């Protein structure tokens, strides 16, 4: 390690001298691992899409970087009726799209209606609640009516799915919307996108409606932001160290120590990320339909070793499907969580009649325990899935890994052609996580487990429409108990947010929304 330190020290010292500035001072280059398959806010679910959409577009309401408070966005104020069914939003005046068109309540109502329109087929329409109607009352007022109360509505409206878009733009571009063009009201404008290579945003000169938690209330400091896809971890690290990239939150855990030591790089950390990595199982597939098998698989994985060896102690091992610090977590489950115990796992499988074949792989009634797992191509999931694969091999389960490029993985993950899958996801509360993955209407995606249980559906509805904390917490707690007991996932770890950036940039405050650490990027600026 000392050698590496020395190397990095010389490296950093040399940077200023040898590398001439590669770009003008107010141009920012961000490296990241994967691209999104498109940038239509109602379709795209990847973090890669959220990162860009928060900059290129705005939402009615926003959330503070620590995820605690709702703040104004395109709406400067709002009221909620006592029965929790009618939300009235007052839209700011003087907001305009990148093409200069002024924003009106019509645009807001149309955008949000498109989100929930079955025609759009948005997998995230549920986040808008049970919408009765969304209408513009006058030029600057929108009335959002619900069929049933939705305790999380305001929070959900801060997500990139609720980005306000331009109807003319959507209709003009047709299938090319979010691919060849995007007209938003954000602090940056969509300039060009070369899939899997780079996406360029330029400053929105007229912008002065940023959220109040930003120091900068005018147009962005930066003139241009280039998002570059660099799938290789090592290259991303070196790009940061050598100044070829100014900032990235896709820094490998292995490099964090070294990046902290490098004089030309700062590392920011936030623990309020609520971002969890897991492998899920399709509970109706023969290879993983037996609860004993799923529980044994959970026991086989050593999360502590994973966090320690693969992530150098920078992440928190996960035994629960959401962080135990999350709102509405069920503390009654703390002692029942499945921890590393391969002997018990082997014993359970032996007892259940899953016998090892000559190759050491278990089988029963002609079913061989060789589940097919779909994961994302790229080093993160390659390493995670191989770690799990090696662990499962110890208990006689031969997991087959099929890795797909992020551009196709989401489509693949919506099929029924696999037994297991690897994903990571952001959430704000138990309800947020559970309502995404476990309602039966979300089969096959995002309910990729095919979890189909009327009792769960009922409890989720109770939690969602609850008007008081206790009812909500109890309902969600019960669902949590159900799914942990049947072991539908193998939780892996909870990941804090890390942002590494050049010391030439003013310190960056990580924003935890959907893991898109830079959020609107309004305060991003180079020091003089």
């Amino acid at each position, binding site marked *: 390690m000392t050698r590496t330190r020395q190397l990095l020290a010389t490296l950093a010292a040399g940077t200023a001298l040898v590398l001439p500035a590669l770009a003008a001072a107010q141009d920012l280059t961000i490296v990241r691992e994967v691209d999104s398959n498109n940038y239509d806010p109602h379709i795209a679910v990847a973090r890669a899409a959220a990162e860009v959409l928060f900059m290129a577009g705005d939402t009615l309401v926003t959330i503070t970087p620590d995820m605690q408070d709702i703040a104004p966005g395109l709406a400067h104020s709002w009221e909620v009726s006592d029965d929790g069914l009618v939300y009235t939003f007052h839209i700011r005046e003087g907001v305009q799209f990148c093409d200069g068109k002024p924003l009106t309540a019509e645009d807001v109502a149309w955008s949000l209606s498109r989100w929930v329109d079955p025609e759009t087929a948005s997998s995230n329409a549920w986040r808008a609640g049970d919408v009765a109607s969304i209408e513009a009352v006058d030029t600057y007022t929108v009335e959002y009516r619900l069929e049933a109360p939705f305790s999380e509505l305001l929070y959900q409206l801060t997500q990139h799915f609720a980005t306000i878009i331009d109807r003319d733009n959507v209709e003009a571009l047709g299938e090319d919307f979010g691919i060849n063009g995007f007209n938003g009201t954000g602090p940056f404008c969509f300039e060009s996108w070369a899939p899997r290579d780079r996406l360029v945003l330029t400053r929105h000169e007229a912008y002065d409606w940023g959220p109040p938690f930003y120091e900068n209330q005018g147009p962005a400091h930066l003139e241009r932001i280039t998002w570059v896809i660099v799938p290789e971890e*090592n290259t991303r690290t070196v790009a940061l160290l050598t100044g070829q990239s100014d900032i990235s939150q896709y820094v490998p855990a292995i490099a964090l120590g070294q990046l902290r030591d490098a004089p030309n790089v700062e590392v920011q950390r936030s623990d309020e990320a609520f971002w969890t990595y897991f492998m899920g199982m399709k509970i109706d597939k023969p290879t993983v339909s037996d609860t004993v098998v799923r529980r044994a698989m959970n026991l086989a994985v050593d999360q502590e070793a994973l966090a320690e060896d693969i992530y150098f102690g920078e992440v928190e091992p996960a035994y629960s499907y959401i962080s135990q610090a999350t709102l509405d977590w069920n503390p009654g489950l703390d002692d029942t969580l499945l921890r590393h115990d391969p002997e018990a796992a082997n014993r359970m499988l032996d007892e259940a009649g899953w016998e090892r074949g000559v190759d050491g792989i278990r089988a029963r009634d002609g079913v061989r325990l060789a589940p097919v797992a779909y994961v994302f191509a790229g080093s993160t999931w390659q390493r995670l899935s191989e770690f799990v694969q090696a662990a499962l091999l110890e208990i006689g389960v031969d997991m087959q890994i099929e890795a797909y490029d992020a551009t196709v993985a989401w489509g693949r993950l919506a099929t029924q052609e696999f037994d297991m899958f690897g994903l990571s996801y952001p959430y704000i509360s138990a309800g947020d996580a559970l309502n995404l993955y476990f309602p039966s209407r979300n089969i096959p995606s995002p309910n990729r487990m095919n979890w189909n249980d009327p009792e769960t559906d009922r409890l989720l509805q109770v939690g969602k429409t609850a008007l008081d904390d206790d009812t909500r917490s109890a309902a969600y707690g019960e669902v949590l108990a159900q799914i942990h007991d049947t072991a539908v996932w193998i939780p892996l770890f909870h990941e804090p947010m890390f942002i590494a950036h050049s010391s030439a940039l003013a310190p960056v405050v990580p924003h935890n929304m959907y893991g898109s650490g830079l959020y609107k990027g309004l305060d991003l600026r180079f020091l003089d």
Partner: protein
Amino acid sequence: MTTAADIDSTADPVAPRRRAWWRLLLADRAAALALFLLTVIVLAAALAPWIAPHNPYASSRTVMLPPVWEARGTWNHILGTDGQGRDILSRILYGTRTTLIIGLVAVVVGGVLGSLLGLLSAFYKRIDPYIMRLVDMMLSFPAILLGLALVAVFGPGVVPVIVALAIATIPDCARIARSIAVSVMEQEFIEAGRAVGLSDGTLFVRYLMRNCISSIMIFISLRFGQVILIGAALSFLGLGARPPMAELGMMAAQGRDFLLFAPHIAVIPSVAIFVIVLCANMVGDALRDVLDPRLRS
């Protein structure tokens, strides 16, 4: 039958050289060393399950351990461990096996098919132009492109890569086999064989094939190194072998993430490929020089 045997022994064009080739080859000290190394590597790869010190797929709690000659190295993991704590030496043994199998199967299948085409083309003059046109067409499709095309259709895996490499070996091999066979066909003993009434089959197998085989083998050995390099490159790009299977190109690709911190994870498999290919090339070159200078250009 006696006549046939007589013809065989007197007319073999490579017979006089054959006796001494082994000694000649060993006289070239570099080639002898390469041959020795290659033998050791092949043996080690073949015996991987028995001599590998650890399970190549099992992770341990010591990750990124450097090789034994570096400060923190241990004898338990002579070449260190990779990012998952897997023993690199064991993975290299298994990986070499995969890499060699990919190369060998491709070169043998492609070589056999190609030589048959070439020999048939020389033997039956009627079909010669057709076969050669087909070969020309195949020749305009480089191995890497074929590999990409097959992987595009069937998805990443070892099998499409082997098939692509095998197909890519066919045209070159057919051309060489044909040119060798044409000169053999001009020899008197073929004429004589026809005269004594031997069937086409006997002539083809006994006389033509026998006399061409050593030259063709040399060509195939020259080709082997290249095929291994392409196979490793495809695996490096994520188009070939898939985890957990160990393959040298893939291991190098996985090591890239650790280049800054534990370069040995990428360097060791790369060097292994280099040594294999270098030895194969040197042995091939030397064999050619000794046995069959005709192939030189």
